[in-house]
């Protein structure tokens, strides 16, 4: 009975949404901006991996962001949302950062606070940086190497500043011997032994063992400087002290924020940031349809969360304002994975049977289709990560002749698995992600054709860490197929794949290696990667890791995710960057008019 009621409500909601979509379309016809470039828009995909309208940008004006969600934290130590990292370049600087360029070039590192990309000695275990002259805080005081060290040390205070990435700890102090600056008994609270600051302009990092992605980690927002006397600990995210061209004027959690120019920032000290607008605002809306419509209406310039327009917004924009849209491939891959602790997925042939049986086009449609969902995923390394091959690498012929499912091969694999008549299993899926539920239903239907009966277990999406992230819980509930998605923390195989595929990252809670991959070859390749400094060799190893993962049939990739993102006609110098998984690079967007 409950199911019937729910179903009825869903139908009612869907019907209502359809009618509203139609009406919204009609409304937009009356007030729309017209197609083509009449409204000044750069054109469809004009900012996708290329720069749109850079020459039209002027200094001044207010750049207006809207979002349906606030950041997890604006504290540079605590934030983990991709859009927060992207946005934080307005008010925070790091020793290194990403180039302000489109596509793959944007994922390359460039000096920011430092004069160069560092001197590497001691076989890759020591990195030395010198700070630029003229770098200042928002009160005009110089940014020192001690400030950089203190900002980095804060990452160790996970008891106070939880939530952010912990790559710095794992590379500089893997045994967690340092307890963070708040428990640091040294007089200056700068007791982290792995980092030296011989003078105010020099900072030296000592790694216990080399890691070829250390510079990538230094470019993360977690490595931003924080001034000790301005550190409000857990409340720092309410008003971070700026080292960048903008500073916080106001912030109300869940409502919005306003950034204004930091008049103490020296443009000459910053080769990266152009600081075009005078003011940057963010409004948090709870209604995606409304915020999409307001973007289209011109009330806002850009969506902060970069998750793309919703179904109604897409319908209107594609019809009326296509020139304001970009359709980038994001760094995210949506997938199903098979915990090898749950029978019969301990057998590679049973895993392959599921990969072959799935209808990949149907799954792509469930994700939103080729435009809003993405290209059919054929392997597990995002195309935006070095070593990623996109659809060129398709070991199970997922995007080729097997795109609607290969029943014969699936049955053959079932025979080799010792389950010729199929088996029963459970698909675990987050209940707050309608697209994931739809992909689970698609899988359920196609697996049934080869005798695999899958129940769908919908769980509270906010409890990932304790439900699918707990191997004992997965085994207890016999969750044979787990549906998830993943994007890179930084654009390398380590930043994307190590938590997913390296056996050292199997955790009892908060685990992300859901398949429980314990493959010495893969572990060895990651070890080899971290000690290899040559970029082309690193790329080669990345490709090899991806191949090993796919050969193990631990994953059924769904899509290389794509979204339809909106850019207003008021803005220029817009481009997507691989540094932030295909998001727009916010930091140098400017307005065409200062009014």
């Amino acid at each position, binding site marked *: 009975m409950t199911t019937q009621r729910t179903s009825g409500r869903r139908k*009612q909601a869907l019907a*209502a949404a359809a*009618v*509203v979509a139609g*009406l*919204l379309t*009609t*409304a937009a016809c*009356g*007030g729309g901006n017209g197609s083509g470039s009449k409204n000044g828009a750069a054109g469809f995909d004009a900012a996708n991996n290329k720069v749109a309208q850079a020459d039209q940008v002027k200094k001044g004006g207010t750049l207006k962001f809207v979002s349906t969600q*606030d950041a997890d*934290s604006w504290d540079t130590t605590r934030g*983990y949302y991709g859009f927060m990292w992207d946005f934080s370049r307005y008010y925070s600087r790091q020793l290194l950062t990403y180039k302000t360029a489109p596509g793959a070039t944007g994922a390359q590192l460039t000096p920011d606070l430092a004069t160069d990309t560092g001197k590497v000695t001691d076989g890759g275990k020591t990195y030395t940086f010198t700070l630029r002259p003229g770098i200042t805080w928002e009160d005009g005081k110089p940014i020192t190497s001690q400030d950089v060290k203190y900002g980095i040390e804060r990452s160790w*205070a*996970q*008891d*106070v500043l*939880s*939530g952010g*990435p*912990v*790559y710095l*700890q794992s590379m500089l102090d893997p045994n*967690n011997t340092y307890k*963070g600056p*708040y*428990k640091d008994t040294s007089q200056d609270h700068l007791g982290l032994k792995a980092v030296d600051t011989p003078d105010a302009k020099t900072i030296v990092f000592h790694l216990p063992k080399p890691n070829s992605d250390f510079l990538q980690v230094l470019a993360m927002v977690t490595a931003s400087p924080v001034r000790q006397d301005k550190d409000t*600990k*857990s*409340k720092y*995210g*309410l008003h971070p002290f700026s080292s960048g061209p903008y500073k916080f004027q106001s912030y109300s*959690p*869940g*409502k919005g924020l306003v950034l204004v120019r930091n008049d103490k920032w020296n443009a000459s000290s910053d080769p990266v940031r152009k600081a075009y607008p005078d003011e940057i605002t963010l409004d948090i809306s*709870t*209604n995606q*349809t*409304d915020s999409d*419509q307001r973007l289209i*209406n011109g*009330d806002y310039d850009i969506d902060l969360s970069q998750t793309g327009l919703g179904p109604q917004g897409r319908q209107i924009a594609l019809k009326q304002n296509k020139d304001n849209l970009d359709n980038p491939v994001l760094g995210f891959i949506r997938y199903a994975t098979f915990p090898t602790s749950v029978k019969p997925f301990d057998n590679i042939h049973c895993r392959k049977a599921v990969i072959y049986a799935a209808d990949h086009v149907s799954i792509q449609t469930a994700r939103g289709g080729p435009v809003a969902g993405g290209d059919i995923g054929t392997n597990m390394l995002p195309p935006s990560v070095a070593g990623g091959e996109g659809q060129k690498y398709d070991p199970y012929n997922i995007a080729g002749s097997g795109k609607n499912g290969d029943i014969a091969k699936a049955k053959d694999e079932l025979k080799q698995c010792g389950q010729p008549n199929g088996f029963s299993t459970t698909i675990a899926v987050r209940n*707050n992600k309608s697209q994931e539920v739809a992909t689970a239903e698609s899988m359920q239907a196609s697996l049934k054709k080869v005798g695999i009966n899958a129940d769908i277990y919908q769980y509270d999406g*906010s*409890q*990932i*860490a*304790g*439900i699918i*992230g707990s191997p004992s*819980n997965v085994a*207890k509930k016999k969750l044979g197929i787990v549906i998830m998605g993943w994007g890179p*923390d930084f654009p390398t195989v380590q930043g994307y794949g190590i*938590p997913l595929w390296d056996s050292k*990252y199997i*955790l*009892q*809670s*908060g685990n*992300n290696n859901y398949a429980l991959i314990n493959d010495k070859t893969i572990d060895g390749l990651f070890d080899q990667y971290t000690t290899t400094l040559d970029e082309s060799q690193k790329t080669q190893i990345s490709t090899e890791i991806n191949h090993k993962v796919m050969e193990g049939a631990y994953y059924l990739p769904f899509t290389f995710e794509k979204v339809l993102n909106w850019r207003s006609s008021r803005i220029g110098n817009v481009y997507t960057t691989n540094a932030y998984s295909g998001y727009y690079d916010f930091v140098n967007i400017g307005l065409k008019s200062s009014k």
Partner: protein
Amino acid sequence: MLAYLIRRLFAAAVMLVVIVLVVFSIFFLVPKWAGVDIATSFVGKQADPHAVEAVREKLGLSDPIYAQVWHFFKGIFVGRTYAAGGDVTHCAAPCFGYSFRSEQAVWPVLTDRFPVTLGLALGAAVLWLVFGVAAGVLSALKRGSLWDRGAMVVALSGVSLPIYFTGLLASSIFVFGLHWMDGKYVSISDSFTGWLGGMILPWVTLAFLYAAMYARITRATMMEVLGEDYIRTARAKGLAEQVVIGKHAMRSTMTPILTMLGMDLGALIGGAILTETTFSIPGLGQAVLTAIKNQDLPIILGVTLITSLAVLVANLVVDILYAVIDPRVRLS
């Protein structure tokens, strides 16, 4: 009267304590039974076990539920200090908890958002009372007429259509289609006219739903009252029709309307979630929705308490108003 008030206030206090216990149980026992550790949702993608343990300690999740409930009540009267890992956060009395998600005390969040929701609920209530009751009375007086049938069809539509439909429809027509208004919420302290402009659609949308219900109830009650002996007596005595309707019939008709109003207003003040979400109004409903998504228990608990309190207070006021409207009612 005073004894009655004291009794009702005491009952309300007991009810609030029970509600706190229930909410705590839901948020701490249910995940426990499901084998889920709330602390893990506060750490990042690469959950460090030490970080999880530290978060558990910081949020007091290791304490027994009775201890957590006790700390909560104590905090309301004397304030509370949260200390962990060298970070000390003081939450001044009345401390209704502290949100470690958004790093703010719950009380300021409630006091910041309460007036927004109150404005929404009161404005809509005025509209639905005026139009709903008037439509209901007219329908009852002109039973079977075109007016009656038309009004009841509109009322039925109002009851049937969900707010997220009428809200989006209204926005698409008046904001994005005809551009008659901006439709964006503006704080009353920033601009009174801006606030008024932003609230018109939410008021009308919300009032459309409730006015429909009130019209139907008013019509039914009024028709019943008009058949009462004392109405016939009043008319027989030669009283003017407007006196019979306005003074005698309306008093009895208003009793069930007031009961409904008390419940509806109380519930709306607790958070008109759908309306606030549809129109992006930063009130209690929006706050609680975000809190539910983020598993932010302190905010959920605070809003739940405010909702309960609002319903209890509204009902108490309504009970007192009974005696004013209908002299036959005596408070005892």
